[in-house]
């Protein structure tokens, strides 16, 4: 049995005079200890997916339909009290910006101890001992002293390490990391990613890594979901998606990277913009920007189909695959 099984998850937002759908029929599985990347640009719905898994959508968002089975239990239908037993305990989350994630008026120790005490009957001393062990695991120098420090006394990279240590406190089954290094510098980013990978592997923790950076996904995960306008457009093994993308959007995303073009030449850009949630086109949401789009694409929404080992939501995937050299030329 898989650790996490999401089926037909649909999330809506009740706006001023309409209800918009932020996630459409998201389905995926995650095995125990597996690392999954969710890639997409801003507005694709990747963060909303992350928060839905924690049942932590903030108003006016809500889970409209679908199931989120975690260890066989449906999280989507749980109330807050039931969720509290899971959050931080079996499922932990790492937020994007370490500068604002920690409470500025509580010490690192207080924030770590409270997490432990929320889920286990532990004295403060016992909890602090566990906290120190975990801080050591993330290579925080002199962890005993850190416990008495306030967040503002530490650098961003240090704080993100502490947040990772906090996520590991209760040995969860799954960590959801929402752009964990976007707010950090390049050299620190690489360190944090390496640390996260190492810890997930050694503790056999499942990881869902939400990011916009294909390079990060490529280094960190075994499987990848590519999202566009609230839908999964392509899902499969990371290596295959990076080396041989099937969906025109995934192809466009990879080809648009400067590394994919000779220096000084025009980049292969995807024309147009990501549609806003209120004006998602009928048919395939990517059709207005897609150079392969035919009439059919603009009227009928493509369902995900298996293509080789990946699943792709594209009507034209067969034609496209045969045309790949062409596409290279016209881009």
């Amino acid at each position, binding site marked *: 049995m898989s650790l996490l099984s999401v089926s037909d998850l649909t999330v809506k937002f009740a706006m*001023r005079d309409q209800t918009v759908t932020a996630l459409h029929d998201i389905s995926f599985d995650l095995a125990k200890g597996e690392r999954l990347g969710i890639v997409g640009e801003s507005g694709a719905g990747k963060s909303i997916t992350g928060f839905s898994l924690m049942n932590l959508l903030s108003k006016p968002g809500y889970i409209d339909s679908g199931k989120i089975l975690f260890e066989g239990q449906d999280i989507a239908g749980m109330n807050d009290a039931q969720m509290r037993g899971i959050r931080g305990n079996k499922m932990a989350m790492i937020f994007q910006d370490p500068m604002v994630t920690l409470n500025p008026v509580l010490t690192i120790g207080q924030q770590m101890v409270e997490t432990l005490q929320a889920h286990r009957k532990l004295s403060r001393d016992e909890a602090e001992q566990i906290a120190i062990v975990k801080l050591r695991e993330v290579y925080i120098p002199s962890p005993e002293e850190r416990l008495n420090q306030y967040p503002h006394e530490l650098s961003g990279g240090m704080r993100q390490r502490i947040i990772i240590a906090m996520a590991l406190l209760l040995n969860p089954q799954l960590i959801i990391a929402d752009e964990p290094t976007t707010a950090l510098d390049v050299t620190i980013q690489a360190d944090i990613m390496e640390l996260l990978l190492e810890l997930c592997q050694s503790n056999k923790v499942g990881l869902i890594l939400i990011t916009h950076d294909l390079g990060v996904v490529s280094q960190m995960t075994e499987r990848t979901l590519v999202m566009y306008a609230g839908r999964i457009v392509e899902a499969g093994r990371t290596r295959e998606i990076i080396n041989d993308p099937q969906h025109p959007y995934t192809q466009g995303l990879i080809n648009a990277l400067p590394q994919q073009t000779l220096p000084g030449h025009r980049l292969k850009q995807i024309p147009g913009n990501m549609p806003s949630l209120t004006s998602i086109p009928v048919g395939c949401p990517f059709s*207005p920007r897609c150079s392969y789009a035919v009439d059919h694409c603009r009227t009928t929404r493509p369902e995900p189909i298996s293509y080789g080992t990946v699943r792709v939501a594209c009507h034209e995937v067969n034609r496209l695959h045969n045309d790949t050299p062409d596409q290279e030329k016209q881009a």
Partner: protein
Amino acid sequence: MSDMTTSTEPTLMRRIWDSNMAYSFRRNPVAVVSLLIFAVIALSAILAPLIAPFDPYDPAQIDIMNSEYPPVWVDGSESQFMLGTDDQGRDLWSTILYGTRLSLLIGLCAVTLQAFLGISIGLIAGYVGGRLDSLLMRLADIQLSFSTLMVAIIFLAITQAMFGSDTFNRFAVYFLIAVIGIAEWPQYARTVRATVLAEKKKEYVDSARVLGFGPMRIMVRHILPNSLSPIFVISTVQVANAIISEASLSFLGLGMPPSQPSLGSLISSGFDYIFSGSWWITAIPGIVLVVLVLVINLLGDWMRDVLNPKLYKG
């Protein structure tokens, strides 16, 4: 991109009607009712000379024998005085109309003065920064910590003592406008400065500087229009506060004289008679004052919810 080019340009009226602000106004019955009540009060105050059955400033129309008649729905009333009369025999309804006119006039003028001073000082302090900024803001802090009312009381008390009460009474309106206007400038200055500092960090200001625009142009054309939301919000609150301040000062005998009563001085003169049972001289102007201030505050609240500016706190 295509949906941008095909849609036609809406007219200005349509734009206003469709705007977030107009929409939330229509959806908010409290705001609509408040605006209606405010409009009624403001209109009757402006038209007081036309509506009022008596002229409370005309001694010939006042007869001390008519004093302390209760309103018409109470026993012992006189039908020509709808809301009764005050201690000097003035028709309360007419006096309230004139009093509201004075209260509103002082409130609005004082806020205009505050806004002028505060916005100029706030803009300059925020834009120029440095020593001038710290000096002005320390000054604002000190004045605020003393509270408007305190500054106003001291200032008015001293002017009253210096000029004597006759001269003071003659120019009371101007003194009140001046003192409430000057004493409250820090509220505006701090709010404007805070928004200017926030706006100044934004890149459109840098962009304007790189394009070579002068500081005046940048302040007035670029920064000021973007600082309007908080100015609108505090302006409503400030009008309400100015009206309360005027009433409080008049109540203490440092504002409008009884011969030319504002709502506050009317309440003050009625207070002496409250123990003898003539409650209406205090109660009716009191209700008018509270309703007036309340609707302004409710409008301010609504505006704060819609515009949601980050106001200066502390």
